[in-house]
């Protein structure tokens, strides 16, 4: 049994313009100690999928169905009270914005200690000692001094490390990192990614990494799920995905990386892009959601929706006209 099994998850939000379908149908698994990347462009449903696990979605407007099992325990049916015991303990979240995600009114030590006292019933002094250890674990120098400082005294990278320290304080089984490096300088990013890798190695924490940065995915993820319009379009171990992307969308994303930029005649380099826009999240299209932007689209793409097919071990893609293994990352584009 996998650590986390999500089956047939659908998430919609009631709005004044009707129900918005953020996640249309997704199934995925997460193994112990695995780093799984959820990638795709803005609005593809990657964050909503992850936030459904601890159910951090507005309760009165969210329509959620499907199954989310953590160690065999169904989370979708748990009442709020029991979820609260899971949040921060079994499932933790590191948010995107380190600058604003810490409470400015209390020291970082207090904030780390608070989670420990709540979930682990540690005494005040034991929690404080543990807070210092945690700051050390996430690579903050002089933790005994930093523990007494307020968030405004720390840099963005430091604050993100503090956020991670809070998230891993109770040794969660699943750590959700929602674009944890997007708001950080590139030089700081690598350090923060190292912290994640280190935590996985030392604590065995499984990590769901939400990102649209394929560079980050290649750097630390074991496996990646590429999402488009609320569905998984491709899923594979990272090395396999980069070597042999099957779905034209995945291939398009990879060509859009700066390292894949095309050199023009005048010596300037041009970034590739995927033409068109993400389809609106209202009606659920019967056809392949990507076909209007797809260079390989044919007539059948406009009438039916492709299901996920297997292409080798652990490699799934949902496309009628996948790229062949022999010719990686080709076909179409601008």
């Amino acid at each position, binding site marked *: 049994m996998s650590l986390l099994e999500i089956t047939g998850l659908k998430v919609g939000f009631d709005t004044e313009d009707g129900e918005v379908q953020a996640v249309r149908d997704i199934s995925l698994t997460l193994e112990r100690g695995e780093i799984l990347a959820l990638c795709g462009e803005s609005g593809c449903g990657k964050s909503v999928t992850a936030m459904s696990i601890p159910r951090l979605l507005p309760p009165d407007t969210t329509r959620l169905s499907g199954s989310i099992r953590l160690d065999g325990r169904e989370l979708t049916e748990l009442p709020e009270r029991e979820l609260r015991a899971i949040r921060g303990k079994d499932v933790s979240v590191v948010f995107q914005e380190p600058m604003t995600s810490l409470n400015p009114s209390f020291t970082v030590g207090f904030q780390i200690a608070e989670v420990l006292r709540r*979930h682990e019933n540690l005494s005040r002094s034991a929690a404080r000692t543990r807070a210092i250890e945690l700051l050390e674990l996430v690579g903050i120098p002089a933790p005994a001094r930093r523990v007494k400082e307020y968030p405004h005294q720390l840099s963005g990278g430091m604050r993100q490390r503090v956020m991670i320290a809070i998230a891993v304080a109770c040794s969660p089984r699943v750590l959700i990192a929602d674009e944890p490096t997007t708001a950080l300088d590139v030089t700081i990013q690598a350090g923060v990614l190292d912290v994640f890798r280190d935590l996985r190695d030392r604590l065995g924490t499984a990590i769901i990494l939400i990102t649209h940065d394929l560079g980050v995915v290649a750097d630390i993820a074991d496996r990646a799920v590429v999402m488009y319009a609320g569905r998984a379009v491709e899923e594979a171990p990272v090395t396999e995905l980069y070597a042999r992307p099957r779905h034209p969308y995945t291939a398009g994303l990879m060509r859009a990386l700066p390292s894949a930029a095309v050199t023009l005649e005048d010596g300037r380099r041009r970034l590739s892009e995927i033409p068109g826009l993400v389809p609106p999240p209202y009606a659920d299209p019967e056809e392949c959601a990507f076909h209007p932007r797809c260079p390989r689209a044919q007539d059948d793409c406009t009438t039916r929706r492709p299901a996920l097919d297997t292409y080798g071990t652990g490699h799934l893609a949902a496309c009628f006209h996948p790229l062949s293994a022999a010719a990686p990352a080709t076909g179409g584009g601008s």
Partner: protein
Amino acid sequence: MVGLVLVAGFLVLAIVGPLLTADPAAQDYTAPLAPPSGAHLLGTDDLGRDALARVAYGARVSLEAGVLSVLLAMVVGVPIGLVAGYYRRLLDPVVMRLVDVVLAFPFLIFAVGMAAILGPSLRNVIIALSVSLLPGIVRVTRGEVLVLRELDYVAAAVADGAGDGRIMFRYVLPGATSTLIVQATVGIPTAIIGEATLSFLGLGVQPPTPSWGVVLTAAQQFLDQAPWLAIWPGVMIALSTLGFNLLGDGLRDVLDPRSSR
């Protein structure tokens, strides 16, 4: 700074002043309506009572009314605003419509009405003023809560498994304190003027207890014979109001994270 000095001065006057001056009820029958002199620095009123003593005692009563009514309004209003802002769907519409009803009346009109219903006494003045101040405080608190509850660190607290109560008091309320302190400081002069107005109208503190409003009322009929009686309580009301307002502005500059330091 000027505000701080003024407010501190008035607090000293209210606490120490009455100890140094004559009994504000003692009458000097030989010298009613006497002009300022060595025996009576600010003169005497129509009953021969020492005007300085009455102004000093008045400071005690007036500041007490001002501070206590704001304090009472904060103690009741802040939790109401906090809960209304936090449980936005459930409680907010009801609470805010009630607040709108009270706010539809001008502050003093409402206070006069409340005081008329409750009857004149210092305690009732404080209640009337705090009820009149309440909607403003509820609304400011709720406004702050609506902003603060959407902040990232509140979402992060939810993600760490914090419950409603903890989020309200540990994450939302601390963020609102600076605004609320400023709001309270600015509410005090309103309450001082309110007390003076109610007492002036005979709905507030009753003679012979001296508050600035009471002293001012009594002085009114002798304005042409003994103008010094009316000047000092008036100056006191003006200066204390100014002092608290300046203090509030100063605190806003210091405490408000949005203003640059």
